[in-house]
């Protein structure tokens, strides 16, 4: 298991754990929950990680990405 901030651009990962309850609820509304497979669409240097799922794109601050556990998806 790795953290979302270590994922490389273009890599496909499955979200395993999102820490905060409110963040989790908001992410589910956006279409991303634990178990969702997403693609890392971009990473700003020391900045947010952008993940995409279909047409949906989310920007996640680096500090939060550091706490989101993911695993590689095939």
């Amino acid at each position, binding site marked *: 298991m790795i953290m979302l901030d270590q994922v490389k651009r273009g890599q496909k990962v499955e979200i395993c754990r999102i820490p905060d309850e409110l963040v989790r*609820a908001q992410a589910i509304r956006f279409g991303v929950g634990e178990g969702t497979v997403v693609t890392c669409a971009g990473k700003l240097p020391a900045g947010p990680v952008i993940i995409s799922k279909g047409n949906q794109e989310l920007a996640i601050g*680096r500090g939060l990405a550091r706490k989101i556990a993911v695993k590689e998806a095939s």
Partner: protein
Amino acid sequence: MQRHCHNLAETIEIPSGKRSIVLVGNPNVGKSVFFNELTGRYVDVSNFPGTTVEIHRAQYGGDVLIDTPGVYGVSSFNDEERVARDIILHADTVINIVDAPHIERDLFLTLQVIDMGIPVIVALNMMDEVQGRGMTIDVERLSSLLGVPVIPTVAVERKGINELKEAIPRACRGNADPELEEKLNALVAGQLGRGDALLVLEGDEEVARCHDQPAGNLREEIYLRRRSRANKILAEVVSTTLLAKKWNKTMGQWMTRPLTGFPILLLFLYAMYWFIGVFIAQTVVEMTEELIMQEYYGEWVISLIGRFFHEGTFLGELLTGEFGVLTMAPIYLLGLLLPLVIGFYLALSVMEDSGYLPRLATLVDRAMTGLGLNGRAIIPVILGFGCVTMATITTRLLGSKRERIIATVLLGITIPCSAQIGVIVGLIAPLGMRYLLIYTATILLVFGLLGKVLNSVLPGESTHLLIDLPPLRLPRIKNVAAKTYTKSVAFIKEAAPLFALAAVLITVLDYTGAMSWLQDVISPLTVSWLQLPSEATTAFIMGIMRRDFGAAGLYGLDLSPAQTLVGLVTITLFVPCIASIMVIIKERGWKDGTYIWAGSFVVAFLVGGILARLL
């Protein structure tokens, strides 16, 4: 925030016997376009009790049509959601606007409203963009899976509007989550509405308190099941081909990558500077302020009032003197401020409607985290360049108290509002690039230092960025114009009385000699510390009334370039105008508000004095 369980029909005045039809949708899906197409003119705009959230309401046949703020779900994560929640809970029919290319995100809200048991009709909007994105949506299948009518629309082109109108009576309760039934029924048997019951189960504490129920702890379970239901529906209804046009995806990536994003931002800022700083601040204002307001209006009103109250008498001065309620106030407000404010709101609406704003938030997130904020704080900062008062109110969208304090301080102290920028540009431009750069660098330095200091001093932790990046779109002129109009009117309504009040205060100070007394008191500081002529004190005192009065007060003085710069820096940094002081105190409380106010004087004079010695 404590919310009373008020009777909504009374607070937003729905006459008894009328049904309420409520527009619901995610942010920026075109709800306002539907609202305007469905209702035409006579729209009531009011603030929802206890919030600054605007509610639009109009007659629709024999019923009342109500617009709600854009939300991703019904709950109480922020003010917008609370307002939308309360209106939706009392709705007889919901028209749910879904952004078709973004259906994946929007369907969560649709299913939540269906779970609430409210009759729904779905308008599947922006269908014209679906094909361009290599998608097809099976509308009939979607309708049968949801159990409610689905009408494809392109609202900005009026496509589907008539079909939607005809279909409103067919709105019905859709296929709710079957696993919820048992639990909901238990609560409904206890006299709760089904929508209220669902929110109680989802752990909405405010709704639970209203009904003396313990808040449930099933939010996550229900949300996850709803999400997977949405995904199942999507899998059946949406098919994607790989032939998608990708210009906006590529463009979207460019906007968030620093290497390309910052040049794009600079380009955008330059366009904004050219449009607002050059075209509006110089060409337009020359006409509106000097010609229309000063020559035509000003001379007319002075000669008219002069017949009744002579020049030099107190009333004469009060009405049409140098700082008169009928001269200075409207000439500044309408001649100088209004064109600038319109320009700013135009730019902001374009950023909002095009989808650039959240990408900008992503781009600047890293820089903002150093100041204890996250990228979302760029929204109040940009608004601050329009009007600090309004921007301070929007600090509510920030996730924690410490972020709201930091943003308020930075706005109040370092961000010059549009009114002020116009005057500053007018004064600095003739001095050349060097002075413009020194000014900008000084303000940026103070901005950064203040943020860093507050971030390390204030207790607690700031929240992280988690933001939806909507598809990029070309903004529609009609929508941008409508937004700009509403916001500009609201601004004038808010600012006009304050301007009149400021004019009265300044006239009284001037007429009674209090102004020269205050000048004598403050002028040692002005003269010896800032090295400015003592008359500059007047500009500072006026700056407290309304910030641009202050900067404009420097116009008439014979200053060296260095003195102009020191004066402008000091005026930018110290105390925001009366309106923003009031709003800061209202939002942050007496103690913090007063600290911010007093602190701004210290920072302003300190920086101004240091600069005077360095130049």
